Every structure is written in C-alpha cells, then in structure tokens.
C-alpha cells in the first residue's frame, strides 16, 4: 500500500487496542445502504515509476513552444535558488503558521514579504496573499464597499482596459453582495481609459474606481488624473498593477494627490512559473486606516515572554475562523508558498535588478512590435507608451494565424476577438527579458511566412 506504513501485525495490535474485530467495524455507524459498492471508474494504482512515465508522455505532448503570450501571466527568468529553497520540506510541507513558536520561518518570511510589497506599492500594509490577481480585484471591490463609509451605492467603476478575466471574476464574486460594477470605455486611438467617459458619474455616489496600470493592452494610463478624479468625488481608488512594472512606474501610493487606497495585483511575475495558470498569488495592500477592512492573513512583529522579537499572525478577528459570518472574507487557505517564492525572488532582484528586468521587458517589447509591425498586414493599434505588451491589428482573422504559428512552435499572443470585438482582428503580444533578439526574429520570420502563405480574409480599415 503506497504511503501507508501499517504491517499486518500493526493492524492486529491496533484493532485489539480499539476493541474492534476488523477495520470494517470502524465504519459501522455509516448506514449500510449508503456504502460504496465499487469505484470501477478509477483506474488501478500506478507505482511512482509508472506514473512518472505517464506524466513524461503527457508533458511531451505539450512541448515547449516559444512563448509571446502575456495577458496576465508573464514568462520571466526565475533564479534557480528560488525553487530550490521553496521546495524545502520545511516550507513546502508546513501548515498555516497558527502555532507561531513552531512556524517562525514561515512567519518571518511573510513579514518580510509584507515589507517588500509595501515598499514596491507605496502602500502601508499588505496581507499575506489572496488567490490571484483576479480575486484580488474582486476582494478589493468588496473591501472598498466596507472601507468607504461615505458611499452607500456599492458602485464600482471598472475600465474596459482592465483585464477582461478580472472583470468577469469581479462580477461573479461580488454579485451576491449586490455590488454594481460599471464599465468605463477607452479612447480608441490611445487604448487609454477616457477621463471624459467618467463625466456622467460626476454627481453620483461612486464607491470606488479601479485603475489597471499598465492596462490590459500594455498601455500606460494617466493614473494621476484618474486618481484625483475619484478622490475628488469621494470614491476610493483600487490600483491593480503589474509588480515588475513598479520598478519603473510611480507606485500607486503616490498616484495623484493622495495615492491609491487599495493596491492589488497578481504576484506571478515575481518568481512563479507560468505553470499552466497557477498556482500564482494575489497581493493586496492598503492604508493603515483600512487594515481592519482588509481580508486575508497578516503577520505582525511582537516579542515573546523574554522580550525577544518574534512573529505571529495578528488581527485575526477579521478572519472567518474567529468572525465566521461577519468576517471580511471567507478566505482561509491562501497562496502562501508562492508568496514565499515571491519574497525570495524580490530579495534576489532588489530594486535595481527589478528595474533592469522591467527595462528589458520594455525594450524587448518595443523591438518585437517594431519587427512585427514591419510586416505587410500588421500594424499597431495604439499610440500610447507601453510596458511589455502591445496590441497589433492584423489584416485577417487572428485564430488561424495563431494556429499556423503554433504549428511552427510559436505561441504568438492572445486573440482579442472575443473580449474586444470592436478592435477587429487584434492580437495582444508580449516579450519579457526571457525573449532574445533571436526569438523575436524567429517570430517575425514565422509570422511573415504565415501571412504570406494564406491570403488575407478581408481588409481592415
């Protein structure tokens, strides 16, 4: 029996100690008519060798394409040391650090994480992660409703330039509590959120405005103006940011006159492999005055009986295990291990290293855009400054183009057809520091080939 250490002698002795005739007797309280008769649908067990062979074969099916997709998950160099440490049993197989004295390793790491996230975002306090960037936005909307005592409308404005998956998750996650999420359009030429589009809300009760920087198109928003607009109208500002970009961009804590109120984002770029979509971690930070409205775990530094410093979970009265139905959120298990990876990643990179990563991302993306937009039938959609993503307009439907690229071992980007039909055939591409000049040339050559070999379906304006 894999993973079960019992010998026959053990079982006999244990049953004797219990006073039961056999193991079946231990299930005597389960009504007989409910008992499982068979699990025929489950295949027979495999030993480790067999399962690894199976998984090698499955992995081989998926190959290792050259990736130019971003759209919320970004391929970065991850120092080998990060996962060598994260995989240590003492981090990997520990539980939530409820027993503080036996969990100082995890607790201190979280405290360091909180320190780094606040340093990066310019916020005052951070929690020890929520599930991902999307749920972080959703939790921030709910939190804003609690924090903004002046607003009763439960109305949160979401720009259309916010990641469409984040918008969907916010919708699904806040509908039950009756929040009203409303969409703000963007300026077609620049791909930026339209300040004028906010005009209709001028006199109204708005609870919060979400601002994504850089936005889903990779374009930089005019965050100061948007922040000040919101604050002037009593709305809170929820910043959703890419953590890598914060090495170069103004931290949300300094947006506008007063700074964003809640800062969230997906921590994936900080040391988490793409890994088919997860596990990543959502980060969340805010002003000290709102700390009791923030969901999730928080670690504080304190002292022990001898006065020596130590770390412990604190402000637990916000959480479900204490507050139950009145908790700030139902979140319990979070993304702790990934947050540890993020902490080690940030310690390795420091501000200067992260700045270099961010610069390299911007530079590679410019080069990619230049190389692709040079091809006949391809042009850029927006004129604003971009970070590490860009929207390209193609002279034919994107899906078959991406398929042809995939056949050449290239994942060419994210097709915007479904989420932004108004753009016509449009492709969101991304290049980070993990892409070399050679990679970019490979992509450009392949795309050139693909566009040449199949005729354009219809011309776009």
């Amino acid at each position, binding site marked *: *029996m*894999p*993973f079960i*250490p019992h010998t026959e002698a053990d079982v006999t002795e244990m049953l004797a*100690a*219990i006073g039961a005739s056999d193991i079946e007797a231990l299930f005597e309280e389960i009504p007989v008519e*409910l008992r499982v008769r068979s699990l025929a649908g*489950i*295949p027979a067990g*495999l030993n*480790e060798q067999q*399962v690894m062979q199976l*998984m090698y074969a499955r992995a*081989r099916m*998926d190959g290792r*394409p050259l990736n130019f997709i971003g759209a919320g998950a970004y391929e970065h160099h991850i120092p080998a040391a990060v996962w060598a*440490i994260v995989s240590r*049993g*003492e981090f*990997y197989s*520990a539980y939530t650090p409820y*027993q503080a*004295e036996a969990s100082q*390793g995890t607790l*201190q790491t979280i405290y360091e994480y909180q*320190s780094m996230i606040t340093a990066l975002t310019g916020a005052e*306090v951070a929690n020890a*992660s929520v*599930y991902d960037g999307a749920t972080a936005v959703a939790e921030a909307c709910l939190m804003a409703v609690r924090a903004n005592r002046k607003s009763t409308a439960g109305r949160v404005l979401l720009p259309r330039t916010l990641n469409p998956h984040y918008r*969907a998750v916010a919708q699904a996650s806040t509908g039950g509590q009756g929040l009203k999420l409303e969409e703000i359009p963007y300026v077609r030429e620049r791909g930026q959120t339209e300040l004028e589009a906010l005009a209709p809300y001028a006199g109204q009760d708005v609870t919060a405005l979400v601002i994504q920087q850089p936005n889903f198109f990779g374009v930089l928003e005019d965050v100061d103006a948007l922040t000040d607009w919101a604050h002037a109208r009593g709305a809170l500002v929820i910043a959703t940011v890419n953590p890598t970009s*914060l090495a170069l961009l*103004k931290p949300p804590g300094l947006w506008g006159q007063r700074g964003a109120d809640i800062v969230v984002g997906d921590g994936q770029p900080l040391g988490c492999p793409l890994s088919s*979509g*997860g596990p*990543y971690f959502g980060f969340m930070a805010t002003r000290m005055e709102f*700390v009791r409205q923030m969901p999730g775990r928080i670690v*504080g*530094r*304190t002292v*022990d009986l001898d006065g*020596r410093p130590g770390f412990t979970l604190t402000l637990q*009265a916000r959480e479900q295990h204490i507050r*139950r139905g009145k*908790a700030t959120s*139902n979140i319990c298990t*979070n993304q702790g*291990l*990934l947050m540890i990876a993020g902490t*080690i990643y*940030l*310690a390795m*990179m*420091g501000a200067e*290293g992260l700045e270099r*990563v961010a*610069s390299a991302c911007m530079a590679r993306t410019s080069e990619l855009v230049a190389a692709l937009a040079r091809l006949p039938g391809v042009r850029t959609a927006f004129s604003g*400054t971009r970070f590490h993503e860009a929207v390209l307009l193609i002279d034919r439907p994107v899906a078959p183009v991406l*398929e042809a690229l995939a056949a050449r071992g290239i*994942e060419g980007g*994210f097709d915007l057809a479904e989420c932004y039909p108004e753009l016509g055939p449009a492709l969101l591409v991304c290049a980070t520091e993990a892409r070399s000049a050679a990679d970019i040339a490979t992509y450009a050559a392949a795309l050139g080939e693909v566009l040449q070999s199949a005729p354009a379906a219809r011309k776009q304006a």
Partner: protein
Amino acid sequence: MTLPMCEPLVYEFGRAGRGARGQWPAPESNPPAVPAALRRARRAPLPEVSELDVVRHYTRLSQLNFSIDTHFYPLGSCTMKYNPRACNAAALLPEFLGRHPLASARHSQGFLECMYELQEMLKEVTGMRGVALTPMAGAHGEFAGVAMIRAYHRARGDLARNEIIVPTAAHGTNPATATMCGCVAREVGVGPDGDVDLAALAAAVGPKTAGIMLTNPSTLGIFERRITEVARIVHAAGGLLYYDGANLNAILGKVRPGDMEFDVLHMNLHKTFSTPHGGGGPGAGAVGVGPRLLPFMPLPVVAKSGAGEAARYRWQGEQDLPQSIGRLTGFNGNAGVLLRAYVYMRMLGREGMSRVGEYATLNSNYLLARLQQAGFVAAYPQRRASHEFILTLKALAQQQGVTAMDVAKRLLDLGFHAPTTYFPLLVPECLLIEPTETESKETLDAFVAAMAQILREAATEPDTVRGAPHTMPVRRLDDVRAARELDLAYRPPAP
C-alpha cells in the same frame, strides 16, 4: 527537539550597492523612456543582498519551521499527511511549468487530458455528475457551491431563498461563505451525541431556506448517522444540500456524498489528495455537482470529444455553459496543485482510495483508544471516531489550571506539532486530533507517550506545561501587543 535560534531580517544583510547581480539582466544600452509623470522617482526600499545571503537566510529561516517532512502534525481538520515527492516532480516537468495558461490547443492536450481525467475520477469518488476544478481553495469552492445554489433558486424564480443553515460545529468558512454570497447563515445545534438536532433542523427550514452546509463526518470527528433524514428534511423544504468536503478523506471509498443526496460539494484536494499546504497554501477546492446544479458550474470546465487516438480536449466557456455562475479565477485555477492531486490519485488507484479512509480511521480510533487509556477524555466517548476525534481538557483546566493551549505548546517541546485547539468552538478546552493514514503505529505510540508525560507534568510541575514551549526559537509570543502596536512591515532607517 530544539530548533535553531532567531535569524535577522533579510534587510539586515543588505548594503547599498550590494546585489545578486548574476540574476539581473544586463542594463539596456538604450532603455525605453517612461513619461516623467508616470515614472518612479526613487527606488523601492528592497533588500540589497548577495545571492549567498539570500540562500543562507531563507534556508535558515526554513529550519525554524515544523513541517510534515520533519514532524508528526496531528492537526485535526487539516489532514497533514505525507506529500509524495513524485507529485511535485511531475508538476515541475518543464513542459507543464513553462506552459502558458492561454497556450493553443496544440500545446495543451497533455495537460488537459490530465485535467479531464481528474474531473472524471473526482466524479467517481464523490458520486456527483459534474466537476469543475478552478476554485483555488476549500473556501473558494464553498463560494462556488453556494453561488450555484443561489443561481439555481434564481433560475427557478425562487428569489426569497437566502438562508444557509450551518451546524454550530461548522468550520468558519461556511458562515463566511454564506455572507459572501449574500446569504444569511443560520445555525442549528447538534444533540449530545454530536448528530444534528433534527427537530431544530425541521424548525429551521422553510421557504427562505436556500440550503444547508454539512461536513460528514462532521468537524466533531463523527459520522452524521441520520444523513438521509437530514437530506429529506432539507429537500422537502425546497433547499439544497452542500457537502463541505474538507474531510472527504475520512470516507473515501466508503460512502459518497452523491449517494447521500448532496447536491453540491467542494473537495480540499490539498487535504484528501495530499497536495502540500505550503505554509498556508496553495490549495485547490474543486467542486462537484449533482444533476440540479450541472448548468451552473463555474467556468471553465474541461470537455473531451472523440475517443482513443482521436480524443481532443478543450476548456469550455460561456458558450457551452450559458447559465454558469461565471469565472472565479484569472485563468484555470491552481493548475500545478491540480496536477499534483491527479498524480496522487493515479498512484492510489481504485484500491488505494478506500485504504485512505480505512487507515486514517484505524489510526484515529487507535490513538483515541490509547489516549483514553492514558487518562484523556473524549468529547464523544459513545461514538466511533472517524479520521479525527476530539479530546476535551475541561477537567484539566479546572483542576490543574492547565489549558488545551498549554498542552499544545508543551507538545512542541516534545517534538510534535500541536493538534487543532479550540475548534470546533462548541467543545470547551478541546483538542481536535487527526493522525492521518500515513503515520506509523510507532509514531502514534510516541505521541501517546508525550501526551501521558504532559498529563504527569500537569500534576507534578504544572509550570513546565504552562510556560511551554521552552525549546523553540521563541517562547510564547505577545499576541495582544502584536494587535495593539501594529508592526506589519520593516521600515528601513532613513539614510
């Protein structure tokens, strides 16, 4: 078992200009410009440390932790069992690790086949009709489940149903979830035998009842014997039944939530299917649904077309499930966790599944029997323990002034992680103990010996117990000060 001493903060190893430069890209010769108004003015105060400092610091920090790989961890309701390293190795294969979540179908079939088979296996062990994998923890699965219950009632025009019934022993996430879904949690009590008070339940249900959330075996460590009756009462009142599958390991291969007439459940794959807890996460809270809730599953769900060599897999979206409660995650959930659970299930296989429930229950009942012999008091002595059980130390607290917390802390000194304390709330001075099936009889015996020693110490030298732990990197921490004088982030001294 003594742990090493404290470790400075990572910042304290830093000096201006130091850094793990081997990790940094070369500086751009011609860096693209960020408009001045959007640019960062001053570098963030992150640590400036060498690569060796980082490795040494976090390696040493890790050694300050207890973990399954180093200690017995009988944490009730948390299922801290062996996390097979093969699951990790498989999830870390470069093709899976490097795969972008939005990759083309061509570069996805291997991953999706695993996900599809995982859905199918979970359907089989739970007796449900559909499974969605995307929720990222138990509580997230609960949210999906209750949201589906609400969507079901709404779809029928039944708009008044906003009450979720939870037993008093329920995990905190249950009422919290009800609230998050815009419902009201309504508690019903349990009888002296630990089973739900049926009369109270019958009185509680009605036209406002959206559903009931139950764990079975309950967090009292016992099986709800009249579950068919409970189901009948709730269904008759028009409500649906939610199964909190955090404890599914207790009944794996023995009884299936679907057969107990539950309409929806979540499973803590990070418990039952042994993906590691990672010091707080990540988890995976897949949900399963019966026929009533099939149209409402969260997006996306993996579908298969064709068979054998011609089989093709894809994520289903809104077009396929127009009544879905929607999307709950940025991508497809904690894929790496799901892969680990998949590998674990394939290793267990058909026979292994029921052995999990059997040996978890054997270990639990054995430990309970031995601890009772050693003088501890079971909260429900008349009942068979499931995979976990509760001791109540009320007498000890009253007579010797030694609390459940003191016993828990003293266990740390003796090389054991503490059991869950003070949960469920309704049992005073309780320890909720779950040994799991992967621990040997010798380990359980050693734990009994430690508990017996503590009982002796409580009588002869109670201060040893009350002052515990004595051998950890820190002694008991000042939680009150932690909450009053909030110190939540290091601020570097101004330069």
